[in-house]
């Protein structure tokens, strides 16, 4: 495999983890989060500092997961107070706050970011394999949760909080659980990203990236694990596929986003479901 292919596959794996974990929060549990990049970034920075300090891969993974989920739980508590669109804007705020804060901190490298992060020691192929294993584990976890009691509770809370509460489902506890799990995985993805690039700046975790992740969830079909996986792979490959229009990359991306949502508001999962129903009816 060429270095190019290895790096593309690594990025796909990372984006799959991010999109699937965001889908747990926004898809399963209905809590719109447009700040997933902040948790990803928190994990990446935690991993980078740990690697620079200790060089231990295991510690770095641990630090990233813990940092991601702690920040996530903090936002989760916010989700208990503010709802729906208020929450969406709050999470946008969290993302801008994260980037704005990191840029001004000398100990986090400021505008320049952190470079020269020690290698994980697995080499590019080893890193890629690790990323893919974690991505597969994330998908498995997502499928498991969606079929478990917890998944039912998430969906109940997402559909109608009041009704869920009437059934004795503690909406607050499940929201916190969704944020905790989803952002822990985002932190993990951040750590893998750090191993992959060995160089991070705040710009990699900006709001546009969070929008990109949300776009993967919406285009894949909100709540559908496989739909989101396909969309994550597709949207990651898209910039590569339209490399020939490199100068118009954002134009094409924005246009396609509008077009896809306009034509298939239910996402890929919605399209497939419709096709399936049509075949059965005929």
């Amino acid at each position, binding site marked *: 495999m060429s270095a190019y292919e290895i790096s593309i596959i690594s990025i796909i794996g990372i984006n799959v983890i991010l999109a699937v974990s965001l889908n747990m929060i926004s898809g399963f549990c209905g809590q719109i989060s447009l700040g997933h990049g902040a948790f990803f970034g928190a994990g990446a920075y935690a991993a980078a500092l740990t690697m620079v300090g200790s060089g231990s891969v295991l510690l770095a993974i641990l630090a990233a997961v813990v940092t991601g989920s702690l920040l996530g739980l903090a936002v989760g508590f916010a989700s208990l107070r503010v709802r729906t669109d208020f929450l969406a804007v709050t999470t946008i705020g969290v993302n801008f*706050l994260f980037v704005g804060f990191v840029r001004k901190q000398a100990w986090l490298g400021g505008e320049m970011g952190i470079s020269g992060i020690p290698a994980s020691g697995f080499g590019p192929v080893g890193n890629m394999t690790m990323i893919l294993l974690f991505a597969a584990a994330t998908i498995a976890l997502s499928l498991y949760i969606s079929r478990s009691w917890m998944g039912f509770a998430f969906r109940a809370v997402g559909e109608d909080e009041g009704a869920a509460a009437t059934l004795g489902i503690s909406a607050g506890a499940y929201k916190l659980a969704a944020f905790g799990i989803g952002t822990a995985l985002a932190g993990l993805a951040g750590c893998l990203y750090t191993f992959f690039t060995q160089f991070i700046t705040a710009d990699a975790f900006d709001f546009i990236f969070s929008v990109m992740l949300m*776009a993967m969830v919406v285009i894949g079909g909100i709540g559908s694990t496989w739909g989101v996986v396909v969309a994550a792979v597709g949207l990651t490959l898209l910039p590569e596929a339209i490399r020939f229009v490199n100068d118009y990359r954002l134009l094409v991306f924005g246009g396609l*986003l*509008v077009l896809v949502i306009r034509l298939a508001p239910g996402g890929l999962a919605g399209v497939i479901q419709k096709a399936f129903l049509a075949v059965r009816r005929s």
Partner: protein
Amino acid sequence: MYYIDLAVTGISFGCMYAMMSVGLTLVYGLLRILHVAHAAVFALGAYVTVLVANATGSILLGFLAAMIVTPLFGMAIYRVMYEPLLKYRPDVPLIASIGLLIFMQDAFRIVFGEQGITFHRNAFAFTTFNIFGVTVSAVQIATIITAVVVFTALHLFTTRTRIGIGWRATVSKPQIAASFGIDPIKVRYLNFAVGSVLAAIAGGLVAEMNNLVDPGIGFVVSYKALAIIVLGGLGSVRGTLIASLVLGLVEAYGTIFIGAWLDRDAIAFLALIVLLMIRPQGFTGARTA
């Protein structure tokens, strides 16, 4: 005197934010959509103002042209993009809206260049007055006066005219208003038209203030406007006006006191998050959430 200077800066920014975000509040109040692409309308207004002003030599004509073009664009956004998406979850139109903003922003970059465009003649931006030792620029005065005029007009329109009253009726109780013969679809178009005109004026004023329109002009402002309308209590025009002024002032002073620690654009969101934790329904406390 320095602190009063900051207050003037803060208030003029606040007025600009208010004109920018009232359109968003209007759309949210009626359709429950976070209309992020409003920032593209704002940017379009700024570009048209500069282009026409340069072509004709009159800044006034520039503003006028922007106020004609942007409502058409705003209404087209509603017709083509939002109307078919109304029955889906709010994140669906939101993502489409963000997509359109990204598209427009890149389109502006491709057509008018990375560096943006400037006024050929803009004596206005550099004229300053000294009032009792406080330095005030002509653009700041113009912004504040424009905002006062625009919002007084809007207030009179919504309270004194039949159309305005019908509009408010539709926003608060769409079904009942419809049964009284008010066409809700026309109200939606009116909503987008009025909001877009306000955004165009704000865009033109920002272009004046910076003497520059670049592709990124709408980007940060758009998310700040989201913070503002949420602070204002989503859908409340009065709350939005208060929140805009508060944010303008918080930013002006905040940049001085905590600027070393946090950048200007993040201050708005820090204020937002702190306030939301204290008052989850925003300033006005309307229970829309």
